[in-house]
């Protein structure tokens, strides 16, 4: 996949964040639709993570697995925002709700930082193969709907107009294409970095699935249905080898 194609695809995926923000009303149907979409995204990410891991281990196992630990740590640091990412479920997560609310700029910055980490995964996947990257971009497009919905609902609650909130949600997610293209350039210039970045992507995807997508979807649609959807989506991607 060329950097230009990657930029085009990932920019298209950010539009989904605007759609999510416009769903900010959170009616019954929207809530369940977002729950299912989030579960599907979690399953797809798990399957893609597996394919990325296999690809990285085939090139160089040690850098891939050490990269996974680094990716995990990096995404955790990027997630240390005052906003609870809007995905808290129950128990101790509710503690974050009572923490002082972040400013609008803080919310947008947190979303942008979060998207940047996802951009690393897309860029690394593009270095492995175009079909795998396309799969991942499509997955993140689905994920962007729920991310946009969370940010949109938050901004709307603070008096932002629907269109302005949608525009800001898309702008915040625009770090995704920028970082993805940068990472692809890096991989093309320095191929030995590929297993490190592929490993880091696996770690980052696993973190996103467990920290955000699963608790969010469990809350919206119940655990049995979500477990089946996640396994099915992950299995299909793994069977297809992520399109590789």
């Amino acid at each position, binding site marked *: 996949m060329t950097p230009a194609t990657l930029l085009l695809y990932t920019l298209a995926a950010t539009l989904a964040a605007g759609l999510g923000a416009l769903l900010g009303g959170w009616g019954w149907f929207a809530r369940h639709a977002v729950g299912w979409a989030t579960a599907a995204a979690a399953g797809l990410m798990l399957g893609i993570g597996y394919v990325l891991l296999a690809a990285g281990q085939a090139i160089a196992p040690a850098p891939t697995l050490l990269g996974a630990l680094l990716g995990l740590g990096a995404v*955790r640091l990027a997630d240390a925002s005052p906003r609870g990412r809007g995905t808290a479920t129950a128990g101790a997560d509710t503690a974050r709700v009572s923490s002082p609310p972040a400013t609008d700029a803080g919310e947008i910055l947190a979303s942008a930082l979060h998207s940047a980490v996802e951009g690393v995964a897309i860029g690394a996947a593009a270095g492995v193969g175009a079909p795998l990257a396309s799969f991942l971009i499509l997955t993140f497009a689905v994920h962007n709907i729920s991310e946009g919905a969370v940010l949109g609902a938050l901004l709307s609650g603070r008096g932002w107009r629907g269109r302005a909130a949608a525009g800001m949600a898309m702008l915040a997610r625009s770090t995704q294409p920028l970082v993805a293209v940068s990472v692809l350039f890096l991989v093309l210039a320095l191929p030995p970095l590929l297993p490190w970045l592929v490993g880091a992507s696996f770690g980052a995807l696993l973190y996103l699935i467990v920290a955000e997508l699963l608790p969010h979807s469990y809350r919206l649609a119940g655990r049995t249905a979500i477990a089946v959807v996640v396994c099915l989506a992950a299995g299909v991607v793994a069977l297809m080898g992520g399109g590789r």
Partner: protein
Amino acid sequence: MTSAFGLPIAWAVFLAALVTALATGLGAVPFAFIRRLSPRGAAAANATAAGLMLGASLGLLAEGVHHSPSRTFVGAALGIGFILITQRLLGHHEPEIGQLTGVSARRALLFLVVMTVHSFAEGVAVGVSFGGGESLGLAITLALAIHNIPEGLAITAVMRPRGVSLWTCAFWSVFSSLPQPLMAVPAFLLVDRVRPALPFGLGFAAGAMVYMVLIEILPEAYDAAESRTIALLVGGTTVVMLLFQQYL
């Protein structure tokens, strides 16, 4: 045919697989130093177990896909279906495991069933590896024995917070691996017939374990700890398990 130790080779296979099963009991040892887990500690233990199981599942899937992706996928689907049906069946019963009753026992029993079923594939792996030569068999035995310790840890991490005694945890850990010596010998003797079925078994075990993580272990962990902490633990232990499998 005798082994390097003078034993008939079939007995050597059985003893090797028995050692791997007994090694699972060592997973209970760290809990000798921890008397009682707080809710956050229990959540951390669940997250650790989830990560170890996820890592083990990814390893099994990779091995299965290496043999046959489609058979592995079918096996995984059967594994998920098996857990769904087991769950439904257990939904009408109130089993007792040691000091456990009711919901806790159902969850622990489901977990044990998964781990026991998953041991069948490992027993086959030991047997099949001896078919490739004694040195290969011993190497795989050593790897699986070490691999079983975290599995025992995972079982204990699920049962111990629910009040089960340390010895009972060790017993169920070893019990979950008993299919290994039972399966190793027939697998060794029928290695060529068993080999085509191997990806089904590997997929079955992986599908069952991943589904178990999603339906029971993670939701329980989310109830008592912050999801970001859980994610860090799950991710870290998954990678450690993968490193373990890669280099042992």
